[in-house]
């Protein structure tokens, strides 16, 4: 994929820097990323912004060994589905732990890291990753 220009990434900064999604005030479900329409309530629902606490548990995980472009230096790296304590799930890298230390159900917390760089002259893209809670 050709590198996109700035707006493509910038639009998602708030969501990715702050783990900001949405919550349907009608049914109480949380969503990440934020949605305009609640899949359950559709247009009857009312979405408001929600900043997730960053605490969650590992729902599933893997170690990626064949990288997509931009991730070559990180191989091998842990990826997980994290179930946030509010109920929504996110996909994220797990850091500060070894694959053998990871278990389904393990408690993790969000931290702010570099996702990748758009080569030496492009943007540095940041976002959330998760690390084990001691």
């Amino acid at each position, binding site marked *: 994929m050709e590198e996109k220009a700035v707006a493509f990434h910038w639009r*998602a900064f708030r969501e990715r820097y702050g783990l900001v999604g949405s919550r349907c005030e009608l049914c109480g479900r949380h969503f990440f990323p934020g949605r305009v329409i609640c899949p359950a309530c559709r247009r009857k629902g009312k979405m408001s912004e929600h900043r997730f606490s960053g605490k969650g548990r590992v729902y599933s995980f893997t170690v990626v060994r*064949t990288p997509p472009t931009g991730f070559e230096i990180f191989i091998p790296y842990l990826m997980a589905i994290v179930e946030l304590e509010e109920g929504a799930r996110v996909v994220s890298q797990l850091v500060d732990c070894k694959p053998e230390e990871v278990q389904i159900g393990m408690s993790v917390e969000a931290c702010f890291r570099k*996702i990748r760089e758009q080569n030496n002259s492009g943007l540095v893209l940041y976002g959330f990753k998760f690390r084990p809670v001691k």
Partner: protein
Amino acid sequence: MKAPKRDIAIIGVGTTKYGEHWNYSLKDLITEAGIRAIEDAKISGNDIELIVGGSMSSGMFVGQEHTGALFADYMGLNPKPAIRTEAACASSSVALRVGCMAIASGMHDCVAIGGAEKMTDVYGSQATTALAGAMDRDNEAYFGLTFPGVYAMMAKRHMHQYGTTREQLSLVAVKNHSNAMHNPYAQYHKKISVDDVMRSPLVADPLRLLDCSPIADGAACIIIVPAESARKYTDTPIYIRASVQASDTLGMYMRHDITTINANIQAAKLAYQMAGVKPAGIDVAEVHDCFTINEIISCEDLGFCKKGAGGKMVQEGETQIGSRIPVNTSGGLKAKGHPVGATGAGQIVELVKQLRGDAGKRQVDGAETALAHNVGGSGSTVAIHILSRNRGKVC
């Protein structure tokens, strides 16, 4: 969804061999498959009224969009209308469904369905990136997840919830390679063992290289007509008894239970209902084994066994040729190859041969009714076709 206003029959099929075709461009692939299908149908190109071609990403693989126009032009079919359908790895079964709707509507009487993908003109990491477009780009791929990584997490969870074993995953690949030995169009003609799978390098734990369908180039083509005119063309029309599609979330991660694909379940329910068939009435099936775990998960979702028992089913040989429900007699995506946009159409080609009795050493004896199961991404699109030698309802 209602039944089609006209029944549809397949009168011809054609495919290229799948593999690394360094000498073939996308145009060369589709032309070869198209000519074979037209010859098999014994029609003239002029008879074709509409071309519906599936290709996941001719854009990212060869920089070409407007693929419908490419299909029509290079198959010599201008000025007939042509469109490209895209649903990731389900692109060409979705194409077939669109073609069926064109015939069912009464607007067209002969439709060519194509599927093609040219994946080897990019580097490995570029292909990985292109395939990641089948996932949720912003929320899965952005953070570094790859397509094998998606299914790896489904596998991990399936092993955690149902005790599916690493060996059971390997047995899927072993079976499919064994089947492909008898398929001249398959990419691989090499038997493998469970040990071979375990020795292959890890791609995304727990999935290894031999759990993953390979990158390949290929194309397939199907010619369909209204059922009532099928016998003008062939003595062995194969009827499409159900053409069904369902959707699920783009991102696998947000589904309630990642050991099942809801689109599988919804599409299967509808397909069996439309065809008037139960799972036990399926004689042979092509199931989307993009990764070994998906054959296990999908066999469960398709009702071939209970949820969670998919591993045991393959371990006990129930999906072998000659057994209760032969799955992936073609070699599956694993051994036949997976040029993503072509796969859906390719599955139909195999099943048509089975139902005609033309499948040689991989023939399932007396096969009358078949099921093709094609998945886009992690199950965000599922398309199921039930084919039969019989036009009427089967108990």
